[in-house]
């Protein structure tokens, strides 16, 4: 059965149109439950690691305090309780400040959100304020602790707002797909051929969409299966040759040829 390509599955995702203060209309894709769960999971792992270190330090301090004072006697229990309280407060502060710090300092991204390629913004597209980040962080405890009500709200509401988002007036969106990094691995042979092509071929016939497809092929080829790759590059090379009206068949491989076209086009634009 033929595997038929379709449009990107991304059109299934919830979108939102926001008006920035400069009256620019932005269409953004909301993060979705999968990305947000992923981000939270990673964030919790980091917080856990931090807390482990924190409590190890606490242990050291506890031992130090108790051993350095033999006259405490029976009241060592009171000291322990007191230190535990400080430790508990410290844990809570670490956990809360983690989210507040990163969401403000990294423009709406905690390490977990960065990993999941999502970020928090205000309703009008601006960066989150410290008050909003604080509200979100405090309410996270309820969103997760109160039977994952946050997750349920994200799945069921149109704007995917958990309690924290609702109260703070924030949204969590997917980072826009950036333009591909320009540093694609291209061979030397391609660079030589590129110079030649600029003279011998009609590169102006190549449309921006064609270039994008070639670039996408070059980016994705490491992940393609061998047979798919050999089928695709021959097919693409043949089509490109026709488009740029290259009469002479280049002796290089299809891959090198495509790299050369990519470079040559890039140089001209």
């Amino acid at each position, binding site marked *: 059965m033929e595997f038929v390509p379709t*449009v990107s599955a*991304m059109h299934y995702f919830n979108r939102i149109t926001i008006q920035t203060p400069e009256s620019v209309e932005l269409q953004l894709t909301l993060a*979705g*439950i999968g*990305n947000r769960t992923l981000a939270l*999971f990673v964030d919790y792992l980091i917080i856990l690691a931090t807390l482990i270190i924190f409590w190890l330090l606490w242990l050291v301090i506890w031992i130090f305090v108790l051993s350095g004072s033999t006259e405490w006697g029976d009241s060592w229990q009171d000291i322990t309780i007191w230190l535990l309280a400080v430790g508990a407060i410290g844990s809570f502060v670490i956990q809360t400040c983690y989210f507040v710090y990163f969401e403000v300092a990294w423009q709406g991204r905690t390490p977990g959100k960065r990993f999941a390629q999502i970020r928090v913004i205000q309703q009008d597209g601006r960066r989150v304020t410290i008050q909003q980040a604080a509200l979100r962080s405090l309410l996270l405890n309820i969103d997760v602790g109160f039977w994952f009500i946050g997750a349920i709200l994200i799945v069921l509401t149109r704007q995917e707002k958990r309690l924290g988002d609702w109260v703070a007036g924030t949204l969590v969106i997917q980072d826009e797909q950036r333009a591909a990094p320009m540093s694609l691995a291209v061979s030397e042979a391609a660079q030589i051929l590129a110079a030649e092509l600029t003279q011998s071929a009609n590169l102006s016939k190549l449309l921006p*969409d064609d270039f994008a497809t070639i670039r996408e092929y070059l980016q994705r080829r490491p*992940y393609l*299966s061998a047979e798919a790759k050999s089928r695709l590059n021959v097919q693409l090379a043949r089509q490109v040759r026709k*488009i740029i009206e290259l009469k002479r068949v280049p002796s290089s491989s299809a891959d090198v040829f495509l790299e050369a076209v990519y470079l040559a086009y890039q140089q001209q634009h």
Partner: protein
Amino acid sequence: MTRNPSMPEPARSLSVGNVVSMGIILYRSHLKTYLQQAMFAYLWLLLPIYGWAKFYEISARISRLAVMELMSKPENISSAMKHTQPKLWSFLGIAWRIFYRLFGVYLLWYLAIIILGAIAGVLAAFLGGLGMVIGGVILLAGFIGGIVFIVRLYSQWLIAEVPLAVETGINGKQSFQRSSELSKDAISHVQWVVAIAFLVTLPTIAATSFIPFFFLQRLEEGTLAYTLTYIVYLLSSLIGGALVLPFWQSLKGVLYYNLRNQREGIGLRLR
């Protein structure tokens, strides 16, 4: 060099989080159909052998529906069934292949834990407090290592039944191998999907299984209250399973689609 906005973007690879979200999205848009079938599947489980085969066939059917939807060739239940029903016993075969492999691994893991436990005990005996700590760490490492290894294996065979349900001209064994073949270059991706999907199902599973189980523990065996609670626990777990099955199956469909797209790059063409 901006893309022509009226030309649709070729199907790009979905990220881990987006694969999981797609599983939910597809489930939600076909809630009634998928859930109905899942309920039937779980009822079939009560009948030995034939019922179990039906369970796997229906599960695979749900995955097929998800894949066809993504390929813009949506099917209804009866057309999907025409493809999956003939291969009924092959689906059971695939499940069996996974089962005995995982069973073997679990057994080895269990033995490994025992051996490590013995080592930990010896260390504790000879090195006292320090030995206990080292032994504890080794045991923990073995335990976690086992979990990671099992998740990796499970990830490799996660979509074993989907090729059989979707493609023509392959049998159960080839479908099973196809799953490994498709996943092997993206095994981390699949593992993360499994981990996150599991977390997403946690609230439901916790509500339908853990809570009744918790109440069960508080009661005396043999009493009426216990028996009633046990029945509630069984029913609740069944419902929980039926609620969660369509999500896993549509997730497998999304994953299959995503992996094939990544490997075969069908979306790439000029003009």
